[in-house]
């Protein structure tokens, strides 16, 4: 799963909160080209089983995130589908 953010501070804050409060490893990455709307946006990648926990942390800390994406691999490479 991926959740995109407007800034690296927000992405880092989410990743830190997940590690600190939930012991969940989540990595800050540059938003993949397929879903990027422009330059310099960041995302947090995490395992799908942690989706509920990630969303609860985002709510708890009122983190301004943008969109959630489900990530899968097919023959053409990584594919991202927006999820609510």
């Amino acid at each position: 799963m991926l959740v995109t953010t407007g800034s690296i501070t927000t992405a880092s804050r989410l990743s830190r909160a997940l590690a600190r409060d939930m012991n969940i490893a989540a990595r800050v990455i540059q938003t993949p080209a397929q879903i990027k709307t422009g330059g310099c946006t960041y995302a947090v990648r995490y395992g799908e089983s942690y989706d509920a926990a990630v969303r609860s942390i985002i709510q708890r800390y009122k983190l301004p995130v943008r969109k959630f994406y489900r990530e899968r691999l097919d023959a053409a490479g990584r594919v991202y589908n927006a999820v609510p």
Partner: protein
Amino acid sequence: MPPGVSIMLYLDNAATTRRKPARVYGAMLRYALFSGGNAGRGLNKLSLSGVRVIIEAQEAAAELFDIPTPENIVFTQNATHALNLAILGTLKKGDHIAVTEMDHNSVLRPAARFGSYTAAKADKNGYVSPLSFRRALKSTTALAVSTHISNVCGTKEPAAKLARSAHSAGARFLLDASQSAGTCDISVRRLGCDMLACPGHKGLMGPMGTGLLYIKEPDALRPVICGGTGSESESLAQPVTMPDKFHSGTQNIPAIAGLREGIRFVLGEGAENIGRHERMLADALRERLMDMDGIKLYGSPDTGIVLFNIDGLDSAETAEALGEDIIIRAGYHCAPLAHRALGTQNGGGVRVSFGYFNTQNDVKRFADAVYMLTKYTKQH
């Protein structure tokens, strides 16, 4: 000690806390030597370590000031920068701003530049009553500002009551915590601050070149500096995400790392304990000064700041006569209206400001020096 050499007596903590906890210097050195990345510029580990410094400093400041949203804390060069951002970013054409006579020029000058301002009167001890503050508010007041503790005489203003008055008039309330941050318990929630500005290099024990501004509603504040933030670079519009909205350009990360450690030191010691120690020293000095002839004291005994004059001596003459090894501040302390309220507009005052690292020995040494000077002044 060799003849002619004396140990410096630093009593100007209201200007800056000269001595910092060792961990402050250590953090700055560590960041400069082993990291040095530019925060928010890419995903390399050095850049991310800079982002981590900002986040940790925000979290420390949020804990100290009971701020529910750490991301709404932005780092600035100093309190003046933070206050200018708050004032100039809030006011629009036709808006009025209410300030107080006890405010510093870092509030008064941006307010005066805007044109429509009223300064609430202070009494002869530097106290701004809620009634006086209410009188300065108008229907067009967009922002009301007050210092928390006067940098001139140390009088503590009733911030929570002033905030309530501002809100009743429909204005936002900005607290200048330049002298109170790190020396008394501050809760932005309890006090009702819409914004809080303070330097990092005074009570927060950080290095010079640091300050911060807490903004409760970032959407209501315009940035005064725009530019590269490392985010949303495809757009010509300034990002609205916090703290990027107000963090254009390279941030002073080594200094923010030092500030983070300074705030952690204050959290460890307890701001109230630090303030109590400073007040105890100031009370001891006031007692000694009150026993001397020809000394006039000003302000309320609320904090670690003591303002006085010696009869027949201009404040600058007093400071000069006390010698170059006693570091105090004479004059007007960048707060001309405060001196008018206190009755010291002709010649200013001599300000002694204690810090956490001062001791009773420092009080004795300073009081002895003043005593000798008053005796000498009477004889000549």
